[in-house]
């Protein structure tokens, strides 16, 4: 076992005048060959900057290594010249990133981008460079390597792009691969494949990998050793087993506790009253076409979708991107017009209603959105955001204000929030504001579209708890859209699995998890990272925190 990398007392300095002086403080880490070190932490923990500091890729000129050393095979990279770093990058240490779409140059072919690595580090004829690039693409299991070589990034799928990135990173057989959240932007099934690929490549080349992630599931699947970071500090390091099973630091413990269990919570009795029935809902998107325009592209976002929802129930809609789960949600709240089917709220079919006819029903179905940053008008004060709903439905401004203040309290914010702007709040707090807005009209049904997927895991748990509380307190029915089966297991009474616009399976959560009927459901369940690591230890969410 060789020590590849030794990080000693690393301080990454932030620009003067900021809240913090260091983004990373006194970090001590090391990496051996043929091992995967996972650096795990929530946003703002400094994990990404640590990774970039190794490569000398900190955003210049304001963020810089203030103190400490990064020793790579006896050489301090923190003190190395830019030219020396350039030699090392790509050949000895290489890196892959979270979003392969933006990390690849959109106007250059994959082949050319791989070619660059060879050109800048080794002298070899063009012919050989090409054949090696081809070999690399074969190694990362791209379906048609020949074609991929001449393809532009946008012509590949997300998973393929990340494979190409990995091929590029491994072109010169580097000693160290730094992977910065490489699977975060991918669907679960793809994520599982890419993780497998990284593991394979690492094993066959004996590479040392620094793997940055926020997802303990991924950590569990891939890591040999783990370093946990919080607010720029490395709070705990150890083998995967030590850290995940016997965390010593309270922060690690809290994080572990917050990871939702894959074991569904106990079923609750289902009410008789059906508040919503969706029958054969169909929505098709067309693009292109028209006059002289050639064939139109047709996407079936929702194909004959049938669902129902009883009072007090939470129905989960689960699927990967493009499955149509969001389309169904948007059709139900009438943000999108479905072209066929029924949306029965009580006895009223909402689908054919015009704007005016829809208006009296609007209040009954409200929505919570995914992105806590995009879902609040940055130019409006929080009080107005919440109070404008009741005002539109006839409440006086005093009543609306009282209502808003009450709701703020319910979602766990204090009165001072009323006169502030959204940007003054953290992501979790904003999501609370979004929930308060949805509740202001006292709806019967809450449609939550990936309400926690943009949040850190500890915040995520709090919001899920909040939603649960509110549902019980207000006797709400909820449609909960998510891609995360762990979350679904803890929130939903029943789950509908969607694939390519169709509901392939629907049933009570526990049954569906225990005995999936459709192969796709099985596939999804199999792909959940970290299976078996947390299930036995963590308690059901409702009792946690």
């Amino acid at each position, binding site marked *: 076992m060789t020590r590849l990398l030794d990080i000693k007392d690393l301080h990454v300095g932030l620009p003067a005048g900021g809240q913090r002086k260091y983004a990373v403080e006194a970090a001590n880490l090391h990496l051996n060959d043929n091992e995967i070190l996972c650096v795990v932490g929530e946003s703002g923990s400094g994990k990404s900057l640590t990774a970039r500091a190794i490569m000398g890729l900190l955003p210049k000129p304001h963020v810089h290594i203030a103190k400490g050393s990064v020793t790579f095979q006896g050489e301090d990279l923190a003190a190395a010249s830019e030219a020396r770093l350039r030699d090392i990058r790509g050949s000895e240490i290489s890196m892959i990133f979270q979003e392969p779409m933006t990390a690849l140059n959109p106007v250059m072919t994959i082949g050319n981008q791989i070619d660059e690595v060879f050109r800048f580090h080794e002298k070899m004829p063009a012919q050989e460079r090409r054949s090696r690039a081809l070999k690399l693409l074969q190694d990362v299991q791209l379906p048609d390597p020949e074609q991929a070589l001449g393809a532009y990034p946008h012509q590949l799928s997300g998973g393929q792009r990340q494979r190409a990135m990995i091929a590029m990173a491994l072109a010169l057989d580097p000693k160290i691969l730094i992977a910065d959240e490489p699977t975060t932007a991918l669907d679960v099934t793809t994520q599982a494949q890419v993780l497998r690929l990284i593991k394979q490549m690492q094993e066959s080349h004996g590479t040392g990998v620094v793997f940055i992630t926020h997802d303990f599931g991924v950590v569990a699947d891939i890591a040999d050793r783990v370093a946990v970071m919080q607010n720029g500090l490395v709070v705990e390091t150890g083998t995967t087993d030590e850290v995940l099973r016997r965390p010593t630091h309270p922060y690690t413990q809290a994080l572990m506790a917050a990871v939702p269990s894959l074991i569904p919570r106990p079923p609750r009795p289902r009410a008789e009253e059906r508040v919503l029935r969706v029958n054969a809902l169909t929505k098709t998107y067309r693009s292109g076409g028209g006059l002289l325009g050639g064939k139109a592209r047709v996407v079936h976002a929702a194909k004959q979708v049938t669902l129902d929802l009883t009072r007090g129930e939470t129905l989960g809609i689960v699927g990967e991107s493009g499955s149509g789960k969001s389309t169904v949600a*948007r059709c139900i*709240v*009438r*943000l999108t017009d479905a072209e066929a089917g029924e949306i029965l709220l009580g006895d009223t079919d909402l689908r054919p209603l015009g704007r005016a006819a*829809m*208006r009296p029903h*609007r*209040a009954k*179905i*409200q*929505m919570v*959105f*995914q*992105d806590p940053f*995009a*879902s*609040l*008008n*940055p*130019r*409006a004060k929080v009080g107005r955001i919440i109070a*404008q*709903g009741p005002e*539109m*439905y006839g409440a006086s401004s005093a009543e609306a204000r009282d209502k808003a203040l009450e709701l703020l309290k319910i979602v766990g914010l204090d009165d001072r929030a009323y006169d502030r702007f959204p940007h003054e709040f953290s992501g979790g707090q904003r999501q609370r504001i*979004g929930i308060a*807005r*949805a509740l202001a*009209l006292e709806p019967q049904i809450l449609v939550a579209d990936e309400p926690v997927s943009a949040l850190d895991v500890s915040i995520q748990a709090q919001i899920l708890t909040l939603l649960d509380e509110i549902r019980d307190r207000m006797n709400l029915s909820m449609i909960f859209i998510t891609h995360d089966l762990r979350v679904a297991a803890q929130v939903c009474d029943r789950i509908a699995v969607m694939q390519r616009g169709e509901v392939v399976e629907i049933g009570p959560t526990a049954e569906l998890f225990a005995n999936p009927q459709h192969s796709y459901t099985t596939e999804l369940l199999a792909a959940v990272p970290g299976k078996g690591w947390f299930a036995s230890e963590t308690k059901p969410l409702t009792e946690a925190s």
Partner: protein
Amino acid sequence: MQFWRLFSRNRSAVMGMFILIAIFLMAISAPLFFPADPFSLAGQSMSPPGANGFLLGSDSLGRDVAAGIAHGAKTSLLIGLLATLVAVFVGVIMGALAGYYGGVIDNLLMRTTEMFQTIPSFLFAILLVAIMKPSIESIVIAIAVVSWPAVARLVRGEFLSLRNREFVQACHTLGMGDVRIMLGEILPNCLSPIIVIGSLMVATAILIESGLAFLGLGDPNIMSWGFQIGAGRTLLRSAWWVCTFPGIAILLTVLAINLVGEGLNDALNPRLRDRS
């Protein structure tokens, strides 16, 4: 204030703002310092700067160039601001409707916009002024007519991207009316780029006015920098000051507005905030 802190980081923008304030003050205080009609024949004609009591010289009729610049500042700024206001007003309406509703309305409005952009703009301004006869009003209208398409395109783009943002959708789920969403929710969020493009448009309007005046299409009854340049251009070789000083006034103003515009852009555009 955050905005001011960001803005003041850009030193040239602050300088531009001070120049602009100075020009504003000059425009406002012109009647104090130069109480006489700037057209009045104040003394010896073609006096060089400093001679015969003319700070910046006099023109061929013995009019005070300095008085003309001071009084002209008001006209030039007024033309710039009014034309921009009209253009922004029209452009925002067209762009908002097109971007918000999309589809046929968008198609129709954008074809119209495209049409106006396809007509050579300066030529079109000349044509409009010639038809409406040279006056402040016609110049303002002409400049506005050739300027609004840029605003419309910008606003359309902003509306197009904002209308699908989740906070707008949240308003839909509340059952909010279109006009209220457009004016109350979306518009405030695209004010920054509108302010930036508007500020640059003021500068362009001032340049267009001087160009029209050069071609003899200025308002003969109102003192403006364009008028002074038009009146002094044949004297350029014999009495350089007559048209050079108003030219410098235009240059400084346009420069200042552009600097301020860039500063606004840096301060208002969050994407650029972290740089420099």
